[in-house]
């Protein structure tokens, strides 16, 4: 199928129509301005100083100091906002970390240690990764996971984005397509290479001069699918477009990148995930956010994400061979039921229908299953047709 010349207009007519609808419905600029330049260095330092003053004041009264961390894992602290996604409610429950209790004193010390690191980074306007913090004092922290969790706890406690704390995370995502931008240190990134993808930046907030003519952005769940599309030269065939993967459950930087592209380009964002509960959940993270990062939902979610595929209804429509379909496990069924009860599904009747179809058929399938129809089915038939005829929900 030729994708050049006059076909281009036809190919993207549905996409362009979607874009127009989205721009009418969603306020973008206000959010964008609100996210950028929100917290100054002085404010961060002041917030940390307030915590320390609280500790000193407690000791001056002969009281054991404690820290109150908002509980980021409790669904009871989450509410759904259709414009933002899952967000942490005001006055949410807290976990108290006491300094006079053997079971919590180590965590108290770890939190203070990271406060010092952040304080010094912000003061000197330098950056460090979470990995750097861990390796600076492995005996105190015990594991990388501890540092990661505490940095997010501090971000939530102080109500500032993690990037404002000058702590970076190593990105695991990849991006490719019609996109050029400049990193904060001046490095120029060109994602137009056909054969190799660029790593998602560690400092999304520092990205400048984004240039792209892409008609849409495709979020790809798995690295394997992403590489396959890269090998099949998808971005050239469906040019101009951008594709990005978080390699499974996306890290914060991948989510920030998707959000940044949406804020800058205002083009449709379509998700290509496996037709299974895990894939649907990953797509929901991009669209509505996660419970653990709900305190930063406004900068991490893109509620306008559409589900391109692989839809459960596609399996029937395309008559995907039964031998590549996988029965749902008990865990799949449980997750599917849980997803159907999520507050955001109520506003997505089409998604509900697809998920109920999966529940009834009791089967799931990976994107790779389309290769059973034809080796190049995904890149040459499935995706172009989906995009041309608006096959998203």
């Amino acid at each position: 199928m030729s994708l050049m010349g006059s076909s281009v207009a036809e190919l993207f007519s549905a996409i362009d129509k979607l874009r127009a609808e989205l721009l009418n419905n969603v306020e973008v600029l206000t959010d964008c301005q609100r996210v950028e330049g929100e917290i100054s260095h002085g404010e961060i330092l002041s917030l940390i100083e307030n915590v320390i003053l609280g500790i000193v004041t407690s000791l001056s009264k002969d009281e054991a100091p404690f820290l109150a961390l908002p509980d980021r894992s409790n669904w009871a602290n989450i509410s759904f906002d259709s414009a933002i996604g899952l967000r942490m409610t005001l006055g949410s429950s807290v976990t108290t970390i006491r300094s006079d209790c053997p079971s919590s004193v180590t965590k108290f010390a770890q939190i203070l240690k990271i406060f010092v690191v952040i304080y010094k980074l912000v003061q000197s306007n330098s950056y460090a990764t979470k990995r750097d913090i861990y390796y600076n004092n492995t005996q105190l922290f015990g594991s990388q996971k501890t540092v990661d969790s505490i940095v997010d706890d501090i971000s939530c406690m102080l109500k500032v984005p993690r990037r404002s704390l000058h702590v970076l995370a190593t990105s695991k995502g990849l991006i490719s397509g019609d996109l050029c931008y400049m990193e904060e240190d001046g490095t120029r990134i060109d994602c137009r290479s056909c054969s190799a993808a660029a790593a998602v930046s560690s400092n999304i907030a520092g990205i400048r001069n984004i240039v792209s003519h892409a008609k849409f952005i495709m979020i790809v769940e798995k690295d394997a699918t992403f590489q396959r599309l890269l090998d099949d030269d998808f971005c050239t065939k469906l040019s101009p477009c951008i594709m990005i993967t978080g390699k499974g459950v996306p890290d914060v930087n991948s989510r920030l990148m998707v959000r940044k592209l949406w804020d800058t380009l205002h083009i449709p964002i379509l998700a290509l995930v496996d037709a299974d509960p895990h894939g649907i959940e990953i797509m929901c993270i991009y669209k509505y956010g996660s419970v653990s990062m709900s305190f930063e939902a406004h900068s991490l979610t893109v509620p306008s994400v559409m589900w391109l595929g692989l839809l459960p209804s596609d399996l029937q429509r395309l008559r995907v061979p039964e031998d590549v379909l996988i029965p749902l496990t008990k865990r799949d069924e449980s997750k599917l039921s849980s997803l159907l009860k999520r507050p955001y599904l109520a506003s997505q009747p089409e998604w509900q229908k697809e998920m109920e179809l999966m529940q009834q058929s009791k089967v799931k399938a990976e994107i790779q299953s389309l290769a059973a129809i034809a080796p190049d089915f995904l890149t040459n038939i499935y995706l172009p047709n989906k995009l041309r005829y608006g096959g998203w929900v």
Partner: protein
Amino acid sequence: MLREIQQVLRFVQLLGKRRQQSGLNVKGGLLVLVWTETGPSVQSLNCAVAAAGPWCIGINMKALQPDLKECMFPCACPCLPPDPEELCAFTDLYGSLRLLLTFQMKDASPEWCARIETFLHTYSLANAKIKIHFKFKFSQQTFQRDFSVKIKNKAGGNQRSLILDVTCRTQPPECVKKGCWCQGGHPVLGDRLPLSIPPAAMDQGLFGELSIQAVTLLSPCVLQYPNLPTQLTHIQVLVYGPSNVPVTGPSTFFQNLPAHLDCQEVGLHGLHCSSFKDLVHSGGTVYTVEQENCEDPEQESSPAPIRQSLLLYIFLQHSDPFTYQLSDMMATEVLIERHLEDILNNNKQAVTKAVQTELKNTLKAQNQRKKNQQKMRSAAEVILGSSLSIVSSSSNMDFRNACLHSMKMSDTYDLSASLRESLRRVTSWKFTPKNICYSAQVEEYPESDEPTRTEI
């Protein structure tokens, strides 16, 4: 003399047991009067033992068999009756006398005072509902002590109900003034250990089932101060016969026991038996716990550990369906005490292991506190270091001044020392009230039951 007093107590206790008296109702008074004849040379000691109150209901002195009396006091001579006024004061408190036995001993010595006092104190520890009044008059001097237990606690399984004196006699530390201090203790019932009767004892007529029941009592109680370090300094072993009457005399078995204990497994540095001098006023066998040399300067600056002592009760239990006459039961008790060393040696491994287990269980809490203290000490260093780092490197004068003023310090050097001391204080002395503790606001330490010495 102690043997005679022992026999009287056995008599009353066994009589109560025969009547299947509930342990909870075993309360009453015991009067022990010891005096010498007035005159230029003192050669004899007179002793009167009287009992009144619910614990001796059913005792009919007139019906007391002469042979039983002889069994109780085989070596004693009859003596003059005691001062009626003394008895009057006693009956005013407890009602009419149920039992009054008198006897005379030839070997008069003032040393008997301390020995009887120790014996009665040991008895009182395991029979807390009995109020004991002891008066010893030797020449012109009078020693008097009343044993009245402030705090009692029930311990024991179905076989035996024990009312123990759990009053804590340790003064609370000064810094507890604002908080609460548990004035009692919490006995822990150990496992029951069956014993085999050695052939020599069997030849003398000791049959049936013999066992020991261990109970431990740690004092003072610091359950309400979970972060305070503790240090076990002394262990006292008290042995009681089946009638809850203490056995008398030093025990070679228990004196030698430390040599057979695995102190490392228990968590102790070392254990050795205290000298005879210490034993006289202590009752039972007392061990001193060797302490580790503290070389860590950080440890030295931490709060001094609360010194605790452990009371290890060993209750002998015996049952024999063929022994039911009171005189036979008393004779059996005498037999058990006479052969006690032999019995313990015959079951040396099992008894040693049982004591080891009790010590290990007791020290689990102490060892856990030590680990917690180390954890809190290292965390405190990080907490203080981090806080001071931010204060020192801050260019925000308002913040720095607020911190200094809050702690009433003039510079960050003094602030460091002040914060360190405050953190140490608030974390070490964290108070968590416990329902099981016998707490009261510590204004003045309650009156103790120290003896009153009246010298005339």
